[in-house]
């Protein structure tokens, strides 16, 4: 080979058929037809690598977290044990005192309400407080309300732009602190819920304060510290400097005709917030464009690690569950159900985006994968990440209640956006938020066991607990609250002047945007479809209500359900007991999750992304 000779490797393209064979052949380029489900081998391998690494990490981290919640010794005890005891002493908590479900639920509500007040107050008073080099004024009351609810409820919906609204103190003391606390709240509720399943003939579930303290101290803080340092090593910024004005290499002209010669670069303590925003399934970006910003996500390595961090703890918690109920097969069964849905969703989204856009094909835009172009629909995606990594991120962030983005979901093909919407519509139970995802899935497990019991005419049981009327009442509340909230508020936005004022896109796409707004907030996801103007009193208020309902009206019945299960006598497994660790049950559980999701949302989805898809191809 000659020195300096340029070598181009054409990507290996895998063909999976055309999702509407013969329907369109708009791109007159021989072999490639729009609608072809095509993926590159490189992209498939990257997705497989992500799934394998996530699976491999689930067991060690899950086992470690089980030790944390069972208050067993870990390698961090010599380092953090004394700090934990000091916290209990200052807060006057007796770590050995257990509480029933009501006391735990009340503790959670009071603590989260106080968190809301602190975040609200810090935003409203930031102009009087230090660490505000840009001199930002107070955040408006409606935006403060929405953001305070958003961060207290682990949603991290952001109606504001971080770098143009929040002081460094607000970012660190209000938002980052809540990133830890809200995540720890979800994990604590899960630990209490699991004990309700693991124990029999008991009254108490544990101590919310202890579970929250241990979640923060032993899991979230150490992981975030290590992750933040890795991010800094890769170029994510962490400083308290004023914004920097740099001269442009080539001047430009803005929309007003003014010549622009300088660009202002936003600075700030980003790495510390990004680490926990990913690990705690919070998702709220330091910058407005979230992890598409090069200071939040500068390299392919940070992109991979940030994607991994989204699902790391939720995936590992499945194994934690198995350890705590002393049957790891149960944890792996739930993990398998979640992973199967996730894998199908990632490849579907990748396929839909890889198939390109027939409207662009009609304009003779090249959408073929070559060594020089990723091909497919690249609108709204970072060229440095390409379609496969955008697909993994979009699926993971909507599967988990994370909500961070590295590409704009609004620019996905209608079916690509459909996948993102569906993942949230399933109730954030495909790994889901830290803690909340697994307790949501366990509610579906109980429903699946109950329906299976009805089919064969036996009393349903789950891990030695009889599933009776009270458990099903709570499960029904848990399953119905979210879709009712989403659909009622979406309808409200579509029939009111204030709601319609936020819609910029006409037709089904505008409908999808509004559906996404309330879907995201009521499921505590926080990602935005974008394209809708939602930093208005109407959306801040209705969105805030959606987030409150989605978090606390689900957490309370969950704890009540656990409080009922914990009191039940152990029913030994018999010949008629449905095994809940077999492939049959895994597929049954997946079917229940999908059927419930479809019953709740298919009509709404038909009005949005599905009809938009047909409008696009015809």
């Amino acid at each position, binding site marked *: 080979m000659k020195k300096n000779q340029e070598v181009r490797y054409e990507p290996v393209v895998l063909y999976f058929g055309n999702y509407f064979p013969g329907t369109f052949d708009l791109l007159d380029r021989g072999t490639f037809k729009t609608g072809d489900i095509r993926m590159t081998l490189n992209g498939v391998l990257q997705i497989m690598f992500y799934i394998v690494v996530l699976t491999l990490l689930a067991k060690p981290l899950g086992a470690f977290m089980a030790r944390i919640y069972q208050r067993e010794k870990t390698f961090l005890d010599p380092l953090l044990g004394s700090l934990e005891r000091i916290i209990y002493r200052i807060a006057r908590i007796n770590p050995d005192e257990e509480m029933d479900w009501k006391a735990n639920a*009340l503790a959670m509500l009071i603590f989260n309400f106080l968190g809301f007040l602190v975040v609200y107050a810090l935003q409203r008073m930031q102009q009087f407080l230090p660490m505000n080099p840009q001199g930002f004024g107070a955040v408006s009351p*409606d935006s403060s309300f929405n953001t305070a609810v958003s961060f207290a409820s682990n949603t991290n919906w952001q109606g504001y732009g971080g770098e143009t609204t929040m002081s460094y103190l607000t970012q660190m003391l209000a938002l980052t602190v809540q990133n830890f606390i809200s995540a720890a709240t979800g994990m604590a509720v899960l630990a209490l819920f699991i004990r309700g399943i693991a124990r029999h003939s008991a009254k108490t579930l544990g101590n919310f304060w202890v579970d929250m303290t241990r979640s923060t101290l032993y899991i979230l803080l150490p992981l975030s510290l290590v992750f933040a340092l890795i991010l800094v090593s890769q170029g994510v910024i962490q400083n308290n400097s004023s914004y920097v004005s740099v001269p442009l290499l080539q001047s430009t002209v803005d929309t007003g005709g003014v010549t622009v010669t300088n660009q202002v670069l936003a600075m700030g303590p980003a790495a510390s917030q990004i680490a926990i925003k990913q690990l705690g399934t919070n998702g709220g970006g330091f910058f407005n464009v979230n992890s598409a910003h090069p200071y939040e996500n500068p390299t392919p390595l940070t992109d991979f690690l940030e994607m991994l961090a989204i699902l790391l703890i939720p995936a590992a918690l499945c194994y934690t569950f198995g350890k705590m109920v002393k049957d790891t097969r149960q944890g792996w069964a739930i993990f398998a159900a979640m992973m199967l849905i996730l894998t199908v969703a990632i490849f579907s989204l990748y396929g839909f985006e890889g198939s390109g856009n027939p409207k662009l094909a009609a304009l003779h835009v090249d959408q073929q994968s070559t060594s020089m172009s990723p091909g497919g629909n690249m609108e709204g995606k970072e060229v440095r990440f390409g379609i496969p990594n955008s697909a993994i991120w979009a699926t993971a962030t909507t599967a988990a209640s994370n909500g961070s983005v590295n590409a704009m979901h609004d620019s996905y093909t209608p079916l690509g956006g459909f996948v993102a919407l569906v993942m949230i519509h399933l109730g954030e139970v495909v790994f889901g938020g830290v803690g909340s995802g697994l307790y949501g899935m366990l509610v579906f497990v109980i429903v699946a066991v109950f329906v299976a019991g009805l089919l064969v005419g036996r009393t349903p049981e789950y891990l030695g607990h009889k599933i009776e009327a*009270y458990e099903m009442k709570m499960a029904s509340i848990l399953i119905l609250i979210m879709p009712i909230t989403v659909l009622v508020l979406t309808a409200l936005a579509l029939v009111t002047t204030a709601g319609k004022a936020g819609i910029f896109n006409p037709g089904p796409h505008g409908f999808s945007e509004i559906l996404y707004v309330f879907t995201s907030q009521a499921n505590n996801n926080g990602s935005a479809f974008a394209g809708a103007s939602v930093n208005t009193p109407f959306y801040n208020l209705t969105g805030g209500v959606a987030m409150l309902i989605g978090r*606390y009206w689900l957490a309370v019945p969950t704890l009540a359900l656990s409080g009922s299960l914990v009191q*039940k006598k152990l029913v030994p497994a018999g010949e008629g007991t449905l095994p809940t660790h077999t492939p049959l049950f895994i597929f049954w559980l997946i079917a229940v999750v999908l059927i419930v999701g479809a019953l709740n949302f298919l009509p709404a989805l038909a009005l949005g992304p599905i009809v938009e898809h047909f409008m696009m191809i015809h």
Partner: protein
Amino acid sequence: MIMDDIIYIGLAVIFFVLTWGLLKMCDVLQPEADKSIEEKSGGKV
């Protein structure tokens, strides 16, 4: 602006009071479940 603050904080207070009501409702419903277990198990739980 102070009035707006009072309204939004008041809204949050109302929501958390309603959530406390939900908690009480779940609690009131629960003895029914306990009772059914006692009947079926023939005594203490």
